[in-house]
């Protein structure tokens, strides 16, 4: 075998070409990492947003979107009375009436100060069914107040200062004061704004609510579903919160597939580009390879050495991609229609990038290496 130092030095034989391979390969690996982080982040936020213990009771036919749902405001109390075995905390039953509302949030007086935002009208009972919600600053909203999720500013595309506690904002024509900031790690709620249930009912000019979220203790899903089936007059449906978000996740599957298809096409283009570069690089070394064969090196040993060069270049590219990804993409918030998630460049994603890079190096190297080593020795030794 040729020593590794031979491969290392060959890498630096033409610095411009090395730079081209490392940067080109690095960008492709970066794309792979970002596609994986995007897919994982979106999937993660939808998976984490639904609890197995929570049941959403909403209007029949609105199982696909709670925002379209309208049910009577009396449903929560009737449900609480009819279904036993719901979770209780300090004597309060975990039944949360909610309004999910997609509307305009106005931050200032200018024409461009309005943003489409996701609002949730709640009562303090919301904290019983969504225990992952934690206030990080300020207080829970009372009448005339609103609290904002930690990632709401990112989703709205405004600075965090625009949504700091004490700031006045407008929802519709109603002015509300920001009472606090909350977090709910890894869920869509972090990008929402929560207001008092009655305020949001008034803003939406509705008597109804969107849904009731209940948290099970000894009760089962069937107990809640039986209630919805018995009260046909209320036109209700029950769905596990986890199933609801799983359906939403399925809705975004084509988007994720498109992300991977796009990444795949770019990778395929990069393989051909890289192969072209290596064909040119190896073509100039046909005689050198033939000389080494004349000295006694097998074609297999030489192919391995050429592969080593590409793998080293790929590792450099991976390093470049990892640095860029960690410096500029890790922690980046990505808004989508029902929430916002943070891109996380995890060790798994870094590993995927490195593995992808090495695979590309192998696929892109073997054909040019074969072309370089295939000619008969007498002809190869005479080549220019």
């Amino acid at each position, binding site marked *: *075998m*040729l*020593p590794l130092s*031979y491969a290392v*030095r*060959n890498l630096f*034989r033409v610095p411009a070409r090395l730079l081209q391979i490392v940067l080109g390969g690095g960008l492709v690996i970066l794309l792979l990492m970002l596609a994986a982080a995007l897919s994982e982040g979106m999937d993660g936020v939808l998976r984490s947003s639904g609890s197995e213990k929570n049941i959403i009771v909403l209007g029949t036919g609105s199982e696909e979107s709670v925002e379209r749902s309208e049910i009577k405001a009396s449903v929560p109390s009737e449900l609480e009375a009819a279904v036993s075995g719901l979770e209780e905390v300090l004597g309060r039953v975990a039944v949360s009436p909610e309004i999910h509302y997609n509307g305009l949030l106005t931050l200032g007086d200018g024409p461009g100060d309005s943003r489409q935002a996701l609002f949730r009208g709640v009562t303090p009972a919301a904290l019983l069914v969504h225990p992952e919600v934690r206030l990080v600053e300020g207080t829970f909203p009372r009448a005339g107040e609103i609290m904002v999720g930690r990632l709401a500013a990112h989703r709205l595309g405004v600075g965090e200062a625009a949504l700091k506690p004490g700031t006045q904002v407008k929802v519709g024509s109603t002015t509300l004061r920001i009472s606090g900031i909350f977090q709910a790690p890894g869920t869509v709620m972090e990008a929402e704004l929560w207001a008092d249930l009655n305020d949001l009912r008034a803003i939406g000019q509705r008597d109804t609510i969107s849904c009731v979220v209940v948290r099970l203790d000894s009760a089962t899903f069937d107990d809640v579903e039986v209630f919805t089936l018995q009260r046909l007059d209320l036109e209700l449906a029950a769905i596990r919160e986890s199933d609801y978000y799983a359906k939403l996740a399925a809705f975004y599957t084509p988007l994720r597939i498109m992300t991977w298809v796009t990444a795949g096409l770019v990778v395929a283009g990069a393989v051909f580009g890289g192969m072209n570069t290596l064909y040119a690089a190896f073509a100039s070394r046909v*005689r*050198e390879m033939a*000389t*080494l*064969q*004349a*000295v*006694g*090196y*097998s*074609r297999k040993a030489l192919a391995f050495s050429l592969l080593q060069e590409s793998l080293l270049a790929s590792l450099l590219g991976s390093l470049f991609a990892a640095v860029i990804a960690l410096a500029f993409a890790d922690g980046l918030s990505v808004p989508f229609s029902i929430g916002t998630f943070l891109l996380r460049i995890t060790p798994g994603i870094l590993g995927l990038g490195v593995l992808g890079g090495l695979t590309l190096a192998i696929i892109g190297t073997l054909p040019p290496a074969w072309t370089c080593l295939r000619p*008969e*020795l*007498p002809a190869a*030794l005479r080549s220019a």
Partner: protein
Amino acid sequence: MSSYESFIRCRGVTKTYHKGNTPVTPLSALDLDVPRGTFLALMGPSGSGKTTLLNLIAGIDSPTSGSLHVGGVDIAKLKRGQLTKWRASHVGYIFQLYHLVPILSAFENVELPLLLAPLSRKERHRQVQVALELVGLGDRSDHRPSELSGGQEQRVAIARAIVANPALLVADEPTGDLDRESATQILNLLRELVREHGKTIVMVTHDPRAAAAADTVLHLEKGRLVEAADLNMQAA
């Protein structure tokens, strides 16, 4: 001299290849015996088959038919992989344009054949140093090919060819790219390798002055031997 004692023995060696659909036969039914320790020069016009014969003797190429024994081994029967292994320990090749690896130092170029042998680093270092001293470049071991003159590069190439101590050296126009003084030094060195180290050298050359350094000169024309100019070696 009996063929049994020949270091190189060719019998009915023919080489045919195809250029498109046209068969070309640069060597035809060639018989040759070369005793061990001979410095043989092959001369002839372009296309006479001398480089083809050199490549066959060096195991770079295989004959289409016939037998070709070198050191008792019929290399005509060896497959490509076997020939590669055989070359590593039995033959050193000296090229007209040196064919040194440009990114490696003189020392590392000479060391290349030894990396194929089960030798310790220390032993490799010793053998490389001996080879470089023998060609008079012991003080240039750290130099890269681009930092050496043509004559020095060819001497590094000779050191690479002899470092694994092969019995056979083949040289394809070894002085073809050198000035007269450097060429003379190289030819003296090759002669020294035959006289003092018992190597067998087969050299292709167009230059009568280079051929004069050999013990024997063979002329080829159209793939056949036409003249043997020495009593020590004969066309069989």
